[in-house]
């Protein structure tokens, strides 16, 4: 067996995650690593919880290390396993799941616990803290049904929680003990500006207010009462009053603990084989709750675990509030004192406030509100203790004003020294980024994030990193390589879809207004996409905008190259009858239709029909019971079948019956791109189900559900979703899968591309393994079908959209002389 040392880590937050990255980079073979995580998941970027709460990001977007990463590095990760006991003599740890593991080196990274003030009623249902994804999920859940939220605490976390809950549509009140918000990071002026900004968003702010009790009925929270007697209604109360290092297990083990676990500069506790890291430690009398110091500790610890002699010297921290639309930056110390001077800039109209605190001609504190792009530059001067007397007169105007002329942003970045810090979270300086771009040939922001970590944590330095890329790569760098939806916006499809839901945008103009479209009315690319997203997300409320649909979907026929149309009626499951065939023959004769063809989807196409004849053709077809085959739609097309047990000696199930049932259930539904299906009665697969968007192969024991095949521009066999025993289950799984694709797919993205983007495992987890989720998808599809299953041909024969089919005027022209 291996001679590797055994490294055990308690906790799986951002600090140990970073420590392992550093460790694997320098000494990938040194340790056999075991991690115990009390949370039931992989490592994610906790700084990004606020964007998840506000709906601007999803959980998938904030994962730092997925399951594959742990597998790839041979890390044994126990999820939902809390370590209760360290036996320092035997050098073992034992977790709540019963697993006991021996260590050579142990790292405690238990992080911190949110403080819950033991007010009367703090244990009521609906009283939560704001710390991990579970809290976010509870809040999102509450936001769906309930109206009033109270956030106790107007610090960084409390305000981010309040902004997120407000964006989810709740009535939010923030209760804050001090007289101004974020009083630890901001001075009074900035605190008031911030308060104004929150009021403007519809958040009620009560400063100088003390909560006396949380009220409840039947064990559930119903309100909050304040010391002055005020009572506030509340369906949810979020307590965000601070954090406390989580030290229980260290105490149990008898390690030296004060407020946090005591460590030296080498991150070692008073046991030589036990280290501690992150928010749970106390170094030099300081505990830290921001990410930059944790990453600095991680780097030191990674070096020392492999025999290095690195030392951690404490950190100076800067703070940014992650609330979209509120720009706030603070660093250092800004209390007034006799030997301190200050420089202040106010622009009331522009909502800008900047204050620098100086001591001995050096910056010791900075508060920026409304315009924060110089934050990193001031922070750099502060950390380096640069003498600023030379530029004192123009200092407050920022870096761009320190030359003779204002510099453009690129030139300003070019002027930064190589060791200037670009990414504060990760401690990445300019040269590290430019070197990586040059030596590794990086061309996209994602590449730079992957290789350097710059802008991969809180993301607020993304602009700076992009400017560095422009500087290094010139025009070769296209920041829009992150694929915006079209020229009208910088947002990608996923962002737009999420924001439509999060902000409850229900018309195309509302989307364009709220998401700051750059064009007046959009373009031929974004309008059909937005129309689909709104149809899908608000089936009962949104009025389909036909002018935003391609002509085929507007007139319910396929335009041909000469401007005529083709018409394809549904033949359920590919079955037809003499009556249907006779009707088609008569229609072809009556309207002199030049071409009739059997399609690849088991039905009949009539080509070359003049637009003026469409209504009459449909009327005649309708009399025989035909409905539109939607052969033109980004929606359900065909369900091909074979004859199955009805006729075939090999058939295992009634594949024809199931195909017809699926088609009758799902016709009329709009999807991101066309959706073609098939059901084969046995693995010989005569209906060719294994290259379809969704396919079913019947087997003796039931139904094998396939999806994500392709047989167009790309050719690709399907992936297997899983097996089910009954026809009802097959229907439920297929419908739920289609709904998940409908809700997440980008417009014009076929299901195989969507599946590749989302990941097959994620889809199986939601559709196959999670019965509750599957049922919800299914029900949302059924609900949407109430509004979608209307035969468009019949509607138009009955008079809808008549203008589409007739000229507005026919002019009788006299011959000109």
């Amino acid at each position, binding site marked *: 067996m291996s001679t590797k040392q055994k490294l055990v880590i308690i906790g799986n937050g951002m600090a140990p995650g970073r420590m392992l990255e550093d460790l694997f980079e320098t000494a990938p073979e040194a340790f056999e690593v075991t991690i115990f995580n009390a949370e039931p998941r992989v490592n994610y970027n906790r700084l990004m919880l606020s964007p998840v709460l506000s709906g601007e990001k999803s959980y998938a977007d904030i994962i730092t290390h997925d399951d594959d990463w742990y597998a790839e590095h041979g890390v044994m990760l126990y999820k939902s396993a809390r370590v209760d006991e360290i036996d320092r003599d035997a050098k073992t740890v034992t977790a709540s799941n019963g697993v006991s593991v021996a260590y050579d080196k142990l790292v405690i990274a238990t992080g911190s616990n949110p403080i819950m003030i033991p007010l009367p009623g703090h244990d009521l249902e609906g009283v939560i803290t704001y710390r991990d994804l579970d809290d976010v999920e509870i809040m999102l859940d509450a936001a769906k049904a309930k109206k009033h939220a109270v956030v106790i605490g107007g610090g960084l976390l409390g305000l981010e929680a309040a902004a997120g809950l407000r964006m989810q549509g709740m009535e939010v009140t923030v209760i804050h003990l001090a007289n101004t918000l974020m009083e630890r990071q901001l001075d009074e002026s900035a605190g008031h500006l911030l308060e104004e900004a929150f009021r403007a968003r519809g958040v009620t702010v009560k400063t100088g207010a003390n909560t006396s009790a949380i009220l409840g009925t039947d064990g559930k929270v119903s309100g909050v009462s304040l010391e002055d007697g005020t009572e506030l209604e509340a369906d949810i109360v979020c307590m965000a009053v601070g954090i406390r290092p989580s030290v229980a297990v260290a105490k149990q083990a008898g390690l030296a603990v004060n407020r946090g676990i005591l460590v030296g500069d080498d991150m070692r506790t008073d046991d030589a084989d036990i280290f501690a890291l992150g928010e749970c430690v106390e170094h030099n009398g300081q505990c830290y709750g921001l990410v930059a110091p944790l990453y600095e500790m991680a780097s030191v610890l990674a070096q020392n675990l492999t025999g290095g002699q690195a030392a951690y010297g404490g950190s100076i921290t800067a703070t940014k509030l992650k609330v979209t639309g509120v720009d706030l930056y603070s660093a250092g110390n800004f209390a007034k004192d006799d030997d301190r001077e200050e420089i202040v800039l106010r622009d009331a109209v522009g909502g800008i406030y900047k204050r620098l605190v100086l001591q001995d001609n050096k910056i010791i504190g900075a508060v920026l509100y409304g315009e924060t792009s110089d934050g990193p530059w001031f922070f750099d001067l502060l950390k380096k203790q640069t003498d600023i007397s030379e530029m004192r007169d123009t200092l407050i105007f920022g870096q761009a004003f320190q030359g003779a002329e204002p510099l453009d942003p690129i030139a300003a970045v070019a002027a930064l020294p190589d060791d200037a810090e670009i990414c504060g979270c990760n401690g990445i300086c300019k040269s590290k980024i430019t070197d990586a771009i040059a030596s590794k040939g990086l061309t996209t922001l994602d590449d730079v994030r992957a290789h350097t970590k710059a802008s991969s944590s809180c993301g607020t330095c993304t602009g700076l990193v992009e400017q560095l890329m422009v500087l290094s790569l010139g025009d070769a760098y296209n920041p829009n390589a992150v694929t915006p939806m079209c020229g009208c916006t910088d947002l990608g499809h996923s962002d737009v879809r999420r924001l439509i839901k999060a902000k409850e945008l229900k018309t195309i103009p509302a989307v364009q207004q709220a998401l700051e479209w750059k*064009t007046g009315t959009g373009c*031929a690319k974004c309008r059909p996409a937005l129309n689909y997203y709104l149809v899908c997300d608000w089936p009962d409320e949104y009025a389909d905008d036909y002018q935003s649909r391609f002509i085929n979907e507007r007139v319910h026929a396929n335009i041909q*190259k000469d401007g005529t149309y083709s018409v394809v009626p549904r033949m359920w499951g590919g079955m037809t009858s003499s009556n249907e065939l006779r009707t088609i023959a008569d229609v072809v004769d009556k309207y002199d239709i030049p071409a009739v063809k059997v399609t690849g989807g088991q039905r009949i196409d009539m080509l070359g029909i003049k637009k003026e004849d469409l209504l009459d053709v449909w009327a005649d077809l309708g009399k025989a019971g035909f409905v539109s085959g939607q052969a033109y739609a980004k929606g359900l097309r065909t369900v091909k079948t074979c004859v199955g047990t009805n006729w075939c000696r090999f058939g295992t199930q009634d594949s024809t019956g199931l195909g017809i049932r699926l088609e009758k259930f799902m016709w009329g539904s709009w999807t991101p791109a066309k959706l073609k299906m098939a059901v084969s009665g046995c693995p010989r697969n005569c209906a060719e189900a294994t290259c379809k968007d969704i396919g079913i192969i019947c087997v003796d024991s039931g139904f094998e559900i396939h999806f994500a095949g392709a047989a167009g521009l790309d050719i690709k066999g399907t992936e297997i979703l899983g097996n089910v025993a009954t026809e009802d289950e097959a229907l439920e799984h297929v419908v739920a899968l289609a709904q998940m694709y409908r809700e997440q797919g980008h417009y014009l993205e076929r299901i195989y591309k969507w599946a590749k983007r989302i990941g097959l495992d994620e889809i199986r987890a939601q559709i196959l393994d999670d019965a509750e989720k599957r049922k919800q998808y299914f029900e949302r599809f059924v609900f949407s079908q109430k509004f979608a299953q209307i035969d468009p041909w019949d509607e138009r024969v009955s008079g809808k959209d008549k203008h589409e089919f007739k000229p*507005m005027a*026919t002019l009788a022209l006299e011959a000109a002389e």
Partner: protein
Amino acid sequence: MNAVASLWVEVGTLSDIPKQGARCVVAGEKTIAVFRTMDDQVFALEDKCPHKNGPLSQGIVHDGCVTCPLHNWVISLSTGQAQGADEGETRTYPVKLDGDTILLDAAGLA
């Protein structure tokens, strides 16, 4: 040579055309597409894309342009010029509003 006088003829009313839509006016062999924008301006173009004669009247109307339904060429409603990298021009016709009535200059049509 005679100067060609304008010959304004009524072809319909504003409400006949959906906002961001078009209707056709048939004039002998020619078809004219009359467009209505979001802000109720009207424009008239021959219903033929300069690329492959696609029916512009069937395209999506956006910001003073129409996108041809066949191959996504974008044509300016006011000038008939293809936008972007494409080159070509569709004939435009004078059209105006008198109250809600749409008037097309038929002088150039014959």
